């Protein structure tokens, strides 16, 4: 079983998101980036499959800038191979363009299973798993967990609202948008990633140019206009606790 895990980085939401002068895009050069948390879940699930069944795991990323460490981290965690798709790319690329480049690479790269995060914080024009499924004409599913692989079909569980779930079996090649791995993503110390970066090689693959296919025209990007903002209680924890108790009394919510 050959598994490709598609990983990307996204703006770190802990920091303030600055807009560029146009007001239609983020000031991408002023932001710091972190691996997309759902891609981390997909990578972990793939590594667990490798440990359980000997699957071969490749981490694949578009070279949108400064992504080497993310790929070295995947190798340090246990991925067998890291593939960097190289081209004239940058972080402003919409998901649809990224998906097309990935689809062109994946179409004949020989993977049985493609796993990626169920969503990303910036996938305004569609989630990568669905886009790839549509472009490649491969079966696909989103909001997936509990993936199992063997010699035959791949099985997985899909989640729905209200805690309902269903288990499916699918032929390969298959694309899965992973919601959560069976275990929390593993941690690797930075020292280990540095060590791997000195000994391992990232496989560079020349990939296609971004296309203008169905690109969305963003007219404006802005902070939500508060429909109503919370009344903020200032002060330390003791003062907030006192305010909360007063509210409970006022609302007759004390048990």
């Amino acid at each position, binding site marked *: 079983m050959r598994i490709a895990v598609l990983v990307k980085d996204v703006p770190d939401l802990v920091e303030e998101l600055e807009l560029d002068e146009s007001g239609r895009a983020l000031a991408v050069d002023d932001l710091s980036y972190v691996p997309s948390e759902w891609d981390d879940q997909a990578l972990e699930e793939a590594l667990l499959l490798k440990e359980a069944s000997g699957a071969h795991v490749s981490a694949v990323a578009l070279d949108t800038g400064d992504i080497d460490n993310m790929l070295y981290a995947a190798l340090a965690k246990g991925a067998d191979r890291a593939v960097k798709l190289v081209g004239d790319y940058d972080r402003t690329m919409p998901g649809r363009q990224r998906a097309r480049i990935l689809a062109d690479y994946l179409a004949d790269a020989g993977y049985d299973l493609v796993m990626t995060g169920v969503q990303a914080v910036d996938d305004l024009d569609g989630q990568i798993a669905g*886009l790839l499924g549509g472009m490649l004409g491969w079966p696909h599913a989103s909001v997936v967990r509990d993936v199992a692989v063997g010699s035959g079909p791949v099985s997985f569980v899909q989640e729905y609202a*209200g*805690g309902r779930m269903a288990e499916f079996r699918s032929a390969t090649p298959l694309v899965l948008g992973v919601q959560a791995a069976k275990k929390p993503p593993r941690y690797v110390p930075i020292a280990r990633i540095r060590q791997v970066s000195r000994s391992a090689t990232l496989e560079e693959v020349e990939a296609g140019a971004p296309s203008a296919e169905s690109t969305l025209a963003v007219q404006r*990007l802005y902070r939500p206009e508060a429909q109503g903002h919370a009344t903020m209680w200032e002060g330390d924890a003791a003062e907030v606790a006192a305010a909360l108790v007063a509210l409970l009394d006022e609302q007759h919510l*004390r048990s």
Partner: protein
Amino acid sequence: MGPIIVVVELQNDAMSPATGELLTRARQLAQARSTRVVALGFGEAARSALAASGADDAVLVVGADPYVPTLAEAALRQMVRETSAGLVLLANTTMGMDLGAATAAAEGRPMVAYVTSLTAVEGGEFTATSQVYAGKLVAEVAVPEGSVLTVLPGSWPADDAVAGGTPVREVAVAPESAMELVRTIEPETGDVDITRADVLVSVGRGIQDPDNLELADELAEALGAVVSCSRPVVDAGWLPRARQVGKSGQTVKPKLYLALGISGAPEHLQGMKDSEIIVAVNSDPAAPIFEVAHYGATCDILELMPLLTELLGEAG
């Protein structure tokens, strides 16, 4: 313009509230654009929802129940092609995420996800707003005719009553063998039902460590409340899935929802924004949870919880 296709989803064997919202907006837009609304449902279970859809054309895909992503996608794509759909509306649910992006990509149509508003503009196009970056920013985008949109449930109200009795016609799709359903899994019945609690002490990533859950348990006990949580706490294995509030968990409407260390991603807000009183405590003053909370604070939840427990104990 071609018709507006609305994908019908069920919840507890009836039309889901999110589908009702989509149909409401679809009817308004169809009137503005002099076109029709086509409601598309999967399998016999969708028949009554389709009949009550108020759509101009209600289409039942025969043999597509229970839901299998590949089969439903084939049916939707067939309908989109046959009708030259002017818009395709889906809820931003599991089904919406399965079918939306894939249909858009396969049929060469634009796609807009996480939509919170959709209006017709002069000149033939539409404008949508979408929540991006975990609700920290809103993108306003031009929506060309033919686009596929997944809409966040609860983005606009649904009409209360729709004249029922829409005739339902049946269509068949070619059998799909790539993917098959093995079994459905009913929700875990936890030790408590968080949907029935009057007061929820709900913890998120800000709880930091499973050992700190004891503080939430003690506070809940002092409050006569139940502990619930956001998704990351469940994914970390710290609390069972039955305690999860949000899109893939439970929808709750308690008298008081105390959100501790929860930032308020759209998926979480979807499950709790209709609570009577929401109090949120999060160290990030820009956290989206404060947009829906009635009261908020940015103090340290790990300090707050024991203080509050102590105060409640003293005065109780």
